[in-house]
């Protein structure tokens, strides 16, 4: 089963070097009740990417992640993390992978810190000497240092999510697999997660982040894979996805100059020009963006604002499937 990838010219090397950090071939999971949760997907997450793993609820994202991490046995197909086959290479490779799977989960009667201590004690390859420091740092990093001694059961949803992230950051990681890290967070929390993801990516880690909320991921990811009903519909660099000429150029000007702006657009060859109040919008098409502003200025149009609107992932998804982004069976 090859995914119905519509990536242009199959380019995947959006700044990536070497072999993909996450790779799968025909990865399939059929649960014992007969449900095919994941249906032959070929994932490829290049090194250094922030890979947005998108799909509606029930599309198979978590099941895929579970297979990648060796929690669930694949019915068919193979998977590699950091070049090691999974699940066989798990003992070697998982110490270099931080993971948040389907929300945080900790012992409710232990404190946040004790929970992290426990996870670190379980880790046979974690240096014991540095345990306390690493735990402190991880808590600090997610902003939980103050609440570290509180029992987990008293944590708010946001704090729980942060502790989950802290667990993923207990050791330096090459790959972070974050399944719905923004679930249950308020807008501020969501922003913070996005910030953290950017920061980690900036430090060189590869990040596979899944979400069913397209807009949350849209702004951070360099690569995108879209799941629907167990199939990977498309994957590739964010910018290369979708119809590239779908971007819109939008200019804000004075009411008197609207007609002139329209004319200029037409001259440049922009299509589907539309006027709305003091705004003129048009599809950029094949026209170079750099040519738009000088042309407007040359035509004497007062440019009060100029912006490029790329299609959102939501638009992309609707375009791909002709359907909305709702729960799949």
């Amino acid at each position, binding site marked *: 089963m090859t995914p119905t990838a519509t990536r242009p010219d199959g380019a995947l090397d959006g700044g990536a070097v070497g072999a993909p950090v996450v790779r799968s071939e025909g990865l399939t999971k059929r649960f014992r009740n007969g449900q095919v949760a994941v249906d032959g997907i070929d994932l490829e997450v290049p090194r250094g990417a922030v890979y947005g793993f998108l799909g509606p609820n029930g599309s198979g994202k978590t099941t895929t992640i579970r297979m990648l991490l060796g929690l669930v046995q694949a019915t068919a197909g193979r998977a590699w993390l950091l070049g090691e086959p999974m699940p066989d290479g798990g003992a070697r490779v998982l110490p270099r*992978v931080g993971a948040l799977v389907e929300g945080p989960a900790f*012992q409710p009667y232990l404190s946040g810190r004790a929970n992290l201590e426990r996870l670190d004690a379980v880790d046979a390859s974690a240096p014991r000497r540095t345990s306390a420091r690493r735990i402190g*740092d991880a808590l*600090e990093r997610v902003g939980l240092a103050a609440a570290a001694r509180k029992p987990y059961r008293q944590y708010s949803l946001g704090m729980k999510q942060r502790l989950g992230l802290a667990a993923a950051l207990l050791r*330096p990681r090459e790959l972070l697999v974050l399944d719905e890290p923004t679930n249950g967070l308020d807008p501020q929390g969501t922003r913070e997660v996005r910030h953290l993801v950017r920061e980690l990516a900036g430090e*060189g880690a590869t990040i596979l982040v899944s979400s069913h909320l397209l807009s949350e991921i849209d702004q951070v990811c360099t690569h995108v894979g879209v799941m629907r009903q167990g199939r990977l519909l498309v994957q590739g660099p964010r910018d290369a996805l979708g119809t590239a000429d779908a971007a819109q150029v939008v200019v804000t000007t004075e009411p008197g100059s609207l007609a002139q702006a329209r004319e200029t657009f037409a001259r440049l060859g922009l299509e589907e020009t539309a006027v709305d109040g003091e705004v003129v919008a048009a599809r950029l098409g094949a026209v170079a963006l750099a040519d738009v502003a000088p042309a407007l200025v040359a035509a004497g149009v007062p440019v009060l604002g100029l912006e490029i609107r790329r299609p959102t992932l939501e638009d992309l998804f609707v375009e791909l499937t002709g359907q909305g982004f709702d729960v799949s069976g």
Partner: protein
Amino acid sequence: MSRGEALETGPATVAPAAAATTPAAAAREDAEVRATRGAFGRLLRSELRLVLGRRRTQLLVLLLALVPVLVGTIVRATVDSAFSGQGPGFIERVSGNGLFLVVTALFLCLPLLLPLGVSIAAADAVAGEASAGTLRYLLVVPVGRGRLLAAKAIAALTLVVVAIALVTAAALVTGWVYFGYGDLDLLSGQSVSAAAGFARMLGVAGYVALSLTGLLAVGLFFSTLTEVPIGVIAATVVVSILSNVLDSLPQVEAIHPFLLSHHWFDFAEFLRAEVSWSLLGQGLLVQLAWVAVFGSLAWARFTTADITS
């Protein structure tokens, strides 16, 4: 999600953003630190802290330890009444010799309370962790499933041993305070010195603890089958009751010697003039057989199961 200041005091393990390849290298290097020595000991200590540190567990063990205190107090209070010398087990002997409180307490706990404790220990071990969702995080740490199961089995067994040790200690203390120790009259009518009697009581406690290993293995297997701890508790208790029921049916006499609970009350050997070690050994061999079969079943299941919790 760290705020500005959190970033600045950022962890030393995370390299500055400028050197983009450093963390990857650090991660690889870090993982090179081979399974450090004593890793299993660390895992086990952490499991023990978890199991023994749990409030609910402590409360349960404490309640169990109250059994001998309660029985001792009742015997003490009714020693001159019409009820004196009535009741199950060795209760009529307790007022004469405090040492008998150990056997009495274990005799009273053995049919239901101790199997219940074993069931809870087994249920918490795997199913409890699965239902809390923590199992998936333990496994991606990573930790080998076999190692984790072994650590959990040992921790659960430790809990059972601690519970029995506390019951025994509570019985010894209560018995001594209320009734004192004396020469121990054996079931055959002969008697041994109080010191020998004390040692025999420890033998009783040790044998009872080992007798429960088979049930613990069965419980652990159940624990790997489900994410519902209460289901494991129920199933394990039912197994122990079923075993007792089968043991009382003469129609299935042929299987009696192999039943989980058949040899449970053989701890009474320690109260006979000549302790039949071969009989005790037989009881322990039966437990060993159950441990071998159900322990390996639990292992096979746990190391191949899909963790979907």
